[in-house]
């Protein structure tokens, strides 16, 4: 039993269970196990261990780690699904908001300059996403994005309050129910996306563990 052949089998298994995961996550696991296998073979050979024993040792390590491999993949896949759903909800909501603002307007009569305030929601989203992408790890990034979406929901709610204070609901084509209802819908969608981002982050780290030192 050549150790290199067993190492190739392990490498194939790693490629199989990392398939479909985000490329950086999969690449890191593949490269890390490749380095481990190389170090294992080199170390055992330097100790004069027979090829058969080295091969058996590698196969045994793979077999004993199978359950953990499957569980790790499950956690990563769930987190990936939640993260992608959160991104889709956030982008779709932002597009819907700006389509609505551009087509008919949410505040006052069509073309009311108060609608420009919704640019603040987009600005918070873009700037926040840029800052969150600078976070080094997946968990911190997802927690960061959750905060960005909460901020977008708050700005959206604040705009509705400002519009009400400014008496925009008194315009002939806008009622209080319309103004509050439409803005509440967008607040709920941004908050829903924030919840999904938070859910993605919690799939990586337990609720009571600090994500960073």
């Amino acid at each position, binding site marked *: 039993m050549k150790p290199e052949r067993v190492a190739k089998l392990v490498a194939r298994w790693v490629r199989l269970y990392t398939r479909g995961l985000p490329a950086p996550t999969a690449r890191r696991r593949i490269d890390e196990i490749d380095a481990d296998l*190389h170090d294992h073979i080199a170390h055992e050979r330097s100790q004069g261990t027979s090829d058969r024993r080295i091969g058996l040792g590698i196969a045994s390590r793979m077999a004993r780690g199978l*359950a*953990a491999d499957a569980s*790790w993949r499950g956690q990563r896949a769930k987190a990936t699904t939640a993260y992608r759903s959160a991104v889709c909800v956030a982008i779709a909501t932002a597009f819907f908001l700006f389509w609505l603002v551009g087509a008919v307007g949410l505040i006052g009569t069509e073309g009311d300059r108060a609608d420009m305030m919704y640019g603040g929601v987009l600005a918070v989203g873009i700037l926040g996403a840029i800052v969150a992408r600078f976070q080094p*790890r997946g968990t911190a990034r997802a927690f960061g994005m959750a905060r960005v979406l909460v901020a977008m929901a708050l700005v959206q709610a604040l705009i509705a309050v400002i519009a009400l204070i400014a008496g925009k609901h008194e315009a002939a084509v806008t009622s209080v129910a319309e103004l509050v209802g439409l803005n509440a819908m967008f607040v709920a969608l941004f908050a829903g996306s924030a919840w999904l981002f938070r859910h993605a982050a919690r799939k990586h780290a337990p609720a*009571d563990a600090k*994500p960073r030192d």
Partner: protein
Amino acid sequence: MSRRKPGTLLPLETEILETALSMRHSEQASFHGFGLAQSMREQTGSRSLTGHGTLYKALSRLEEFGMLTSRWEDAAAAVGRPRRRLYELTGQGARAAEQALADTADHAGGRFPRVASEPA
């Protein structure tokens, strides 16, 4: 596989932190997966190395808890072999390892150290 109690580390995670701390005391601040598995085997007197999946899953959890940090080795240092992922204990990880060692000394094993001050 051991089930995780909220707010606790698994025995393997504690063992990793303790081994990393003892490696740090012997002036080996950073370590890689295989080197760690080897040190753990030596410390426990076990005949086998920790399984790949078990080891790397535990390392990734500890990194997510903020107890370890990791980076890729410089390409220049890895001549003729794949680059290693190098891990280092954080302050939080070192404190957890010291606490685990103190608990073991006090109670002769059996209790797991807490990850956070309050349970979920």
